[in-house]
């Protein structure tokens, strides 16, 4: 592969980096010249157009099926990059508050760097390159979490960084064991080595990698950073962590397990369980679903609630992956997009309510339907989608995950992973309770004051686009589900 072809494949990432550098330069220059910080509006404009350009570039880059394993652009990578960019765009649109953040140029540049890392991570088979890409993203995210100058943000950032540092150590250590076993630096070679025999070394490495990725995805019990980050970090950063970063993490997980370690999947089916990542993921999923949903019940801050709901939703995603069937993998990818949209929208709405009310308790939403009927309807869409109620896309996503995961595991008289799907389904019903508590405030409660909430255009887009997308994808899921199914089939066919 020649250098120009490599560069062509990396065009989206290159566009992002260039935009980030330009943004930084312009921001610093403006500040020197005028003595005031760069305006949020223009910084957002630059970053958003950079991401749009990257999306455009992604569409133009020719597919290189026989690419190097360092940077590969198979259909799954293309899909993952598209999703990460789109979700990242929505996060960028959510404007950082002037009071919260004094350096919008730097914040948005960091977000672009984080996105670059996530993009690179979705499109590589190389163990070391994967590590570097993930750390590029993580380091930017640690900084972003602490960017507003409050004690909460500092705590969030520090916690995120400490947990993240440990997880990075796990990742690197795990990868080194895998390398030690297979003498291979790419996932395809690891898969080959596994075909000729499995050693405990490789399995121990795999467990460590799972721990690290569990941290990135906020799966219980590796989720302890999530509530504090969701509560303390600026909304813009949280939006990036909760949506784009989760989507990228899921693609990495799929690639790692279903391409690299497809041979040691084991089984999570009731009555015929055997060791392997399928079983481990199933346990991780069950713990996440239980923990996330039960703890979310007790939250009095909507942001913390969304953090625990993120933990629970990671559990649903893992249900889709642990079945190790193309259909359920596709369903999980569909759900991560849908979940990302819903949680992004919910975070944007919470940020807007917080700005007007000063806090993010459910009570702050009281009477929203009177202040701003459109925001209330959007809230309804997000909460219903998160709870899995039709006709919104979250329902299709959950139903698709559960039914295809069952289809992938049920054999003859066996009950497959009905135990896990049953747990997930029942806990998902429980989750409606805490989402309804927020909706109750917004629709049922009256608030004493009369006001009308005005939204900045960025906010309006960050709320409006996900809301519309959730309705459209709920009614016509095939728009996204079909391309995903094709991409998964193509990428997994090679194994």
């Amino acid at each position, binding site marked *: 592969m020649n250098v120009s072809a490599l560069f062509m494949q990396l065009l989206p990432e290159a566009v992002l980096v260039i935009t980030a550098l330009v943004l930084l330069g312009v921001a610093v220059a403006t500040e020197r010249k005028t003595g005031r910080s760069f305006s949020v509006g223009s910084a957002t404009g630059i970053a958003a157009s950079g991401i749009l350009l990257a999306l455009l570039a992604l569409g133009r880059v020719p597919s290189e099926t026989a690419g190097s394993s360092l940077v590969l652009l198979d259909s799954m990578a293309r899909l993952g990059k598209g999703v990460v960019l789109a979700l990242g765009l929505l996060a960028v649109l959510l404007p950082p508050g002037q009071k919260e953040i004094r350096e919008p140029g730097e914040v948005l540049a960091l977000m672009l760097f984080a996105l670059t890392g996530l993009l690179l991570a979705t499109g590589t088979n190389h163990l070391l390159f994967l590590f570097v890409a993930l750390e590029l993203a993580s380091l930017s995210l640690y900084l972003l979490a602490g960017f507003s100058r409050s004690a909460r943000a500092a705590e969030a950032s520090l916690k995120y960084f400490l947990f993240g540092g440990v997880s990075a150590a796990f990742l690197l250590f795990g990868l080194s064991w895998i390398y030690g076993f297979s003498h291979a630096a790419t996932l395809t070679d690891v898969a080959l080595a596994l075909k000729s025999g499995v050693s405990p070394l490789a399995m121990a490495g795999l467990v460590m990698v799972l721990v690290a990725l569990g941290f990135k995805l906020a799966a219980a019990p590796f989720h302890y950073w999530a509530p504090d980050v969701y509560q303390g970090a600026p909304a813009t950063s949280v939006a990036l962590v909760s949506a784009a970063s989760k989507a990228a993490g899921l693609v990495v997980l799929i690639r790692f397990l279903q391409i690299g370690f497809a041979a040691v999947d084991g089984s999570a089916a009731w009555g015929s369980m055997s060791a392997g990542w399928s079983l481990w993921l199933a346990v991780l999923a069950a713990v996440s679903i239980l923990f996330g949903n039960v703890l979310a019940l007790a939250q009095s801050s909507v942001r913390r609630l969304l953090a625990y709901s993120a933990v629970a939703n990671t559990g649903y995603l893992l249900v889709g992956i642990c079945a190790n069937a193309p*259909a359920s993998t*596709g369903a999980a990818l569909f759900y991560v997009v849908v979940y990302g949209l819903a949680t992004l929208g919910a975070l944007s709405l919470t940020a807007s309510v917080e700005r007007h009310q000063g806090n993010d308790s459910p009570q702050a939403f009281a009477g929203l339907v009177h202040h701003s009927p459109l925001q209330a309807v959007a809230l*309804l869409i997000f909460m*219903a989608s998160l*709870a899995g*109620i*039709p*006709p919104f896309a979250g*329902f*299709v996503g959950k*139903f*698709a995950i*559960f*039914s*295809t995961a*069952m*289809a*992938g*595991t*049920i054999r*003859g*008289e066996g*009950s*497959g992973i*009905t135990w896990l*799907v*049953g747990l997930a*389904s*029942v806990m*998902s*019903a*429980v989750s*409606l*309770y805490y989402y*309804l508590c927020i*909706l*109750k405030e917004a*629709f*049922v409660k009256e608030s004493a004051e009369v006001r009308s909430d005005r939204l900045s255009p960025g906010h309006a887009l960050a709320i409006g686009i996900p809301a519309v997308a959730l309705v459209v994808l709920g009614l016509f*899921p*095939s728009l996204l*589900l*079909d391309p995903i*199914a094709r991409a998964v089939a193509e990428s997994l066919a090679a194994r």
Partner: protein
Amino acid sequence: MTPAWTILSAFAGALLVLLLPARLAGASRLVALIASILGAVAAGVACLERLAHPDAAVWESNREWIPSLGARLHFAADGLSLALLFLTGVVAIAGVLFSWNVNTRPRAFFALFMTIIGGVYGVFMSRDAFLLFVCYEIVILPKYLLIAIWGSTRREYGAMKLTMYSIGASALILVGLAVAYAAAGGTSFEIAYLASVKYPLALQAWAFPILFLGFAVLAGMWPFHTWAPTGHVAAPTAASMLLAGVVMKLGAFGALCVAMPLFPQGFEQWSTSIALLAVIGILYGALTALAQQDLKFVIGYSSVSHMGFILLGMAAATHWGLRGAVLQMISHGVIAGLLFGIAGRVVYERTHTRDLNELKAFDLWKTLPGAALAFTLATAASMGLPGFSGFVAEISVAIGLWQTYPWLVPPVALGIVITGAFSLRAMHKAFFPERNVGDAPPPTLPPLTGSEKSAIALLLAVSISIGIYPKPWVSLIDEGLRSPLFQSILAHP
């Protein structure tokens, strides 16, 4: 005018109401009424056509939807569906008429109301399990909001309890459907296809109760019925009518047309337990209703009792039993709508109490003779007196029961006696109180309005017409029951 008009008119009505400008908010009830009438007429016309040409092809609309999952937009309307569609249309019209006086946020009220109606129509016509589940779940949030915003007694608690029960039950349905889908190969959600697969016996034995229970909770099966009285009492009148009248029937419909045909051998193993729970429900609901002081609670518990007959007819699994179950769905839909309408709107809006002792002071049979007459007739229908729909339905269930579980007939007969007792007690206390000479004269109450009268007349007419001339309904239902779906569960065809 095809049956598709039912769904279309309901959802179009909901959308139109939402889009009305604020100054025309009052017109929302008119839009809702027109949409409901359109739906009912579409269903009625389709029923008549079906009766005239019983051998003609069933109306069907089958489109691609989510090919990667195997879910299709497959609607069809055989006789059974049509009868239930017509019931829904009638209750919808009556519900709009009984809510003519809703003045707080009328646009939102009628939009949510029409959304529920649309979802119910959708369930009754779905031939694809995924589609059915979507339509089934669409009603959940509107139910919650209707009760929590416009309700009365402990509305937030009642709304939350009802919603959590519904969604919990839905979780079970989801698992049950996913099991069937997965075991059938994971290619299609078509109900007819899923029912044609022979699932292993061991799988049916555990999958059937999951799926059936999911539907039965919504049908108010004892001991999972407690959401029903609480929710129905808390709900605004139109919502109680809808909930007891048609939404509970969704559960019964799902149990009959999805759970039982999918896992017929599982059903065989569990049918005795279902019959027992149904009989307990009949007795328990009736006895509890006997002890209530709130008129709406009496009706709420009577619903639990009446829904027991539906489950019992299904458990009997004979032709008479299934026919009786569907007849009871229709009959109870109309009667419960009528009772809730009179208690919640006609009486409560005027007296601001539903307490049986406090109602004494109003001497309703003198101050509100129209309502007293209507309630008396509704009570008679509810008790299952001949000439009303309840009699036809319950006698069919009893015949079916005699064929399969003769030993359950005595307790059911006892249940019917207690039903008579609580109905008469409530009617007597609420409308025909014994008054002493020294009592203060009752206050004058405003007479029945036109919308109330027409709603009462409509519901009574349907109940009496079924009671006097059940033949068209029976032939519609029998036509539906001839579908291959039910052949595997019929013990005595």
